[in-house]
């Protein structure tokens, strides 16, 4: 899926390429604070953020990762629906 296709699905986009750790993590978590239950956040990075994945799982978020042909990592993140 391209950045544009991903971008269309996302309500908010963070391009964290060019930021030094842990800045992308901090920005992502701040942004996730503000998104609604049906909203999605797109995070664009230069490499896969393994610690972020674990943090998303722990904090109740789902995500989908795509690697573009240029090697950029795009992660679409949304809130897991609360258990019934």
């Amino acid at each position: 899926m391209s950045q544009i296709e991903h971008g269309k699905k996302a309500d908010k986009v963070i391009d964290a390429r060019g930021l030094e750790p842990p800045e992308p993590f901090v920005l992502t978590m701040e942004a996730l604070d503000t998104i609604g239950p049906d909203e999605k956040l797109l995070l664009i990075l230069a490499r896969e953020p393994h610690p972020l994945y674990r943090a998303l799982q722990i904090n109740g978020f789902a995500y989908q990762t795509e690697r573009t042909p240029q090697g950029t990592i795009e992660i679409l993140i949304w809130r897991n629906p609360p258990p019934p």
Partner: protein
Amino acid sequence: MQALLSFDQAPPISVPLRFFLTAPLFAMLAGALLLWSGPDLFASRWTPEALALTHLITAGFMLQVMLGAMQQLLPVVAGANIARPRLIATLVHATITPGTLFLVAGFLTYQPWLFGCAVVFLGLGISIFVAATAFALHGVPANSPIILGLKLALAGLSVTVVFGLLLALALGWSFDLPLIQLANIHLGWGFVAWGCAALGAVGFVAVPMFQLTPDYPGWFGRSFAYSALGFVLLWTLAELAAWTMAASLLSVMVVLIAVVFALTTLRIQRRSKRVRPDPVQRFWQIAMFSALAACTLWLLARFSPLLEDWQGWPLLFGTLLLFGGFMSVIVGMLYKIVPFLVWLHLQHRGRGLLTAPNMKKVLAEVHISRQMVAHFTAFGLLVLASFWPQWFVYPAGLALMVANGWLLRNLLAAIQVYRGHLIKIEAVIASRQP
């Protein structure tokens, strides 16, 4: 959001920190040794003082930081959790620290019992470390350059130490062994199969991530560690079998491994997204230029009789490689690792109630820059001392003590921020309890 981080993979902060805080003390001792010994140290690479100085930096400074960093990295990058990390760290630290002191004292006095103690303590400490990390890495597929590189570097460390212990026994009890040849093999394994392979593995991840450069090329990740270990192994076999021509050719290949690492790193650094390099980037840049200068000097000395006759060239080579190369990279890495660890552990301890301070507030860039000036001043004076020891050995010794005292102060300041913030977290938690 005060996100909860995954903490199942991070060892306690005290595990790496004890190693990081001990390292500058050894470098300060190296400075004191320069002041105590004076210009005589620079008479040859084989003077007792030069051997003691070399091991204060390699076993005292470099080994401490590299073992501490590996205990932090292995669980995080490879999912290789060391069982009972605090106990292993305590045992390793409590053995390699006195082991290094015994070794240095052994060089300065040539008392066999001191070499004996060094062999026991260093041998035990490194064996515990290698066994614990090998056990943790057992079954972890080497599917990334960092895991592969660290596995091969561990093999490099083991061989370096075996040759080192053999040399210590030979020196202590005057065994009839080809000491110079064995010392060169020990040096080749230590610098290339352990040092370069480990730095290559860590740099492969850390340089693009923290210096905002493009990735290292794919061939580098696939073949660097194998080449480092492979060429050093072939060269060692050729040396031991007395195949002079092959050994000579292979030794050039071993040095070229370091050249490839330095040139590749400088190439990707040139394409960093940062407009102005930060101090850590500077540490790495100067380290790579210094390593290149060391390798050029080695190659020139190998082929130029004029240079080969100069007693001072091995000392200049050692200064460029150890102080300018390895030490600069390691200090630079400490300035990324320590603030990051403080941030990571505070984020976890905050339990979502209190934000961890920004990494730049844990250790301000201005303090890093000032210490960097002190570090490179000491390095410059050491280079001058290898040409004119009578003039520069004392300023160099003093500058080395100042630079590393400053490094220790900076690291302690970061830990002070950690402690101060923990008190705040405890106060917030206490205020919320009914």
